[in-house]
């Protein structure tokens, strides 16, 4: 894996064999009459064996999406609509949001495991790590003996490159990188089909980040699980992800193969995001931050939420909310989508505004 040549495009067509489909998921924060709509009709499909990157600024709802899809949303978060369809190995679809408590518990870790943001706090400080890996296994394999579960835990530690005699270590005796590896080992112990990783490398230094990311890529190739990789670091995603979804203010604004996002962004926000970090190779270019700050989700109006910070906004953007559509650029991958009025000339015209073409920067 080299830095500037990510693996080309969607190796597996995502829509053909989905393992996780998030449909119109909406999440509110607050139980009162005026809740904050943090996620609004978010849809996302994860193909079997695919690594899907989810990127966006802090507070755009990335983690909320992960928590909501696994029903781990802490109060006062409330899922107000949508479905999360999981397709098992036998092809049976279940809606995670409608499972009863018992089946939800059985499904967790077995079908879908999650690795959290806080590498440091994901392990209970008072138990040895072996026990923490084993109790997840035992919860799903009632007949299994403790010794077998420990053996499995040792196996998992070896898989992530940690010596099995570390089973008897407490979390505080491990480095941050090791703890995150232990978390990954723990998450893979039951061979789940989907692994959600919420900023798994944010708390680590760059060298450790690289090792972890390479390890995840390698394990994915070996074990064949699918990954939703959440981060605000788009450069990292371009390396690891097959497909990238860009989120802004609780909505997905662009969803495309990672190389397409990197080289041919179609949404002004994706483009701006890519211009806010330096490329390691190729010609030097001016770094531009994104002017302004993300909108207050409690005070969202209609129209496009990015318009105040967008270089290409015009009066239609205040009136019409963009929808996820195929970009209005010839020869584009038909599966990619973007939510920008520049790509919806017919709708803009039908609403009585002047239809503007896709700017050259977003059509390259």
């Amino acid at each position, binding site marked *: 894996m080299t830095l500037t040549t990510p693996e080309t495009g969607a190796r597996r067509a995502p829509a053909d064999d989905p393992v996780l489909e998030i449909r119109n998921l909406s999440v509110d924060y607050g139980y009162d009459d005026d809740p904050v709509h943090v996620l609004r009709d978010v849809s996302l499909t994860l193909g079997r064996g695919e690594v899907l990157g989810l990127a966006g600024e802090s507070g755009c709802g990335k983690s909320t999406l992960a928590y909501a899809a696994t029903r781990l949303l*802490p109060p006062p978060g409330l899922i107000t609509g949508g479905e999360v369809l999981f397709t098992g190995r036998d092809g049976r679809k279940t809606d995670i949001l409608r499972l009863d408590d018992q089946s939800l*518990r059985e499904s967790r870790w077995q079908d879908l495991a999650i690795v959290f943001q806080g590498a440091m706090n994901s392990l209970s*400080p008072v138990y040895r790590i072996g026990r923490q890996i084993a*109790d997840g296994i035992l*919860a799903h394999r009632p007949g299994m003996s403790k010794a077998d579960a420990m053996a499995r835990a040792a196996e998992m530690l070896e898989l992530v490159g940690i010596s099995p005699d570390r089973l008897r270590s407490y979390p505080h005796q491990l480095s941050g990188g090791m703890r995150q590896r232990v978390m990954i080992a723990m998450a893979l112990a039951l061979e789940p089909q989907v692994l959600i990783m919420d900023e798994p490398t944010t708390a680590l230094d760059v060298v450790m980040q690289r090792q972890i990311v390479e390890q995840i890529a390698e394990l994915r190739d070996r074990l064949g699980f699918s990954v939703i990789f959440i981060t605000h670091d788009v450069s990292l995603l371009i390396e690891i992800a097959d497909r990238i979804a860009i989120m802004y203010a609780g909505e997905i604004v662009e969803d495309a193969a990672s190389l397409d996002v990197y080289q041919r962004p179609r949404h002004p926000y994706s483009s701006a995001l890519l211009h806010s970090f330096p490329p390691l190779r190729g010609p030097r270019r001016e770094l531009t931050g994104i002017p302004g700050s993300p909108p207050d989700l409690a005070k969202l109006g209609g129209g496009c939420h990015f318009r105040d910070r967008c270089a290409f906004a015009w009066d239609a953007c205040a009136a019409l909310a963009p929808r996820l559509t195929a970009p209005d650029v010839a020869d584009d991958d038909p599966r990619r989508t973007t939510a920008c009025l520049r790509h919806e000339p017919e709708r803009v015209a039908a609403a009585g505004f002047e239809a503007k073409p896709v700017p050259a920067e977003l059509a390259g």
Partner: protein
Amino acid sequence: MRFFLRRGLFYVITFWAAVTINFFIPRIMPGDPVRALIARNQGRIPSEAEASLRILFGLDQDTTLWQQYLDYWALLFRGDLGISFTYFPTPVSDVIAQALPWTIGLVGIATILSFTIGTLLGTGIGWRRGTWADSLLPISTFFSAVPYFWLALIAITIFSVTLGWFPASGSYDRSLIPMWSWEFVGSVIYYGTLPALTIVISSISGWILGMRNMMVTVSSEDYVTVAQAKGLSERAVMFGYAARNAILPQVSSFALSLGFIVGGTLVMEIVFSYQGIGYLLFTAVAAKDYPLMQGIFLVITVAVLIANIVADIAYGILDPRTRQEG
């Protein structure tokens, strides 16, 4: 091992300092215990006896403070705490030995009950925060805000005087002979119920509140969410991950409160005329009974130290981070 040696040395030094202070305080205090004794006996002791009393109490020799200090340590190691002025001529160690089991039994059991019930309630309330269970908090806080003597008097008024369910004072039926019989033990429990109940009611809110708040803090830790995500049962997450971590600060305050059992229930023992060590201290102070006071202070010091050792060990067992290994 070095950890325990270091802790051990620390406790030895603390013990030495406590005993030394304990030795000097009564000697700095003004007043003459022999005169006080004669005055208290209102002429039943002839004033000629003053000299013999001084000899008896060891106040006749003109020894240096340093020599007294050394003698004090020597006597201490033989378990000789001197002779009580008030309970003359009973040795202080006997007086304390009579009172100590009563206090430790009653207040000890009440404290353990209060801690156990309070922590369990706190776990439940913290786990289900924001539900009806939260309304238990102000109720329990109300009872701990009420001054203890008043709460105890109200309890006596209601349960002893009006309803007649429990005796108002004492520690057992005086017509019985203290011995290990069902009848006597039953009587002790019967007499102890009301004092124990008032102690539990007035102290439980601290445990509930402490545990509840720690549960709320710990519940939002990532490892609790991970435990949920692992598909563990609700019980396993609540007790195994949330409560297991939330209980750590509770344990240290519990150990400390064990230390205060010995000296800290003065008011209860006065209100219920319970023959414990607090009541004894109260009479010792009132009577300027220096040997007894000194003895009680020593016992309290030792109790607090032992409680600290217990806390250290318990914490070491419960929290691996405090163990220094290798």
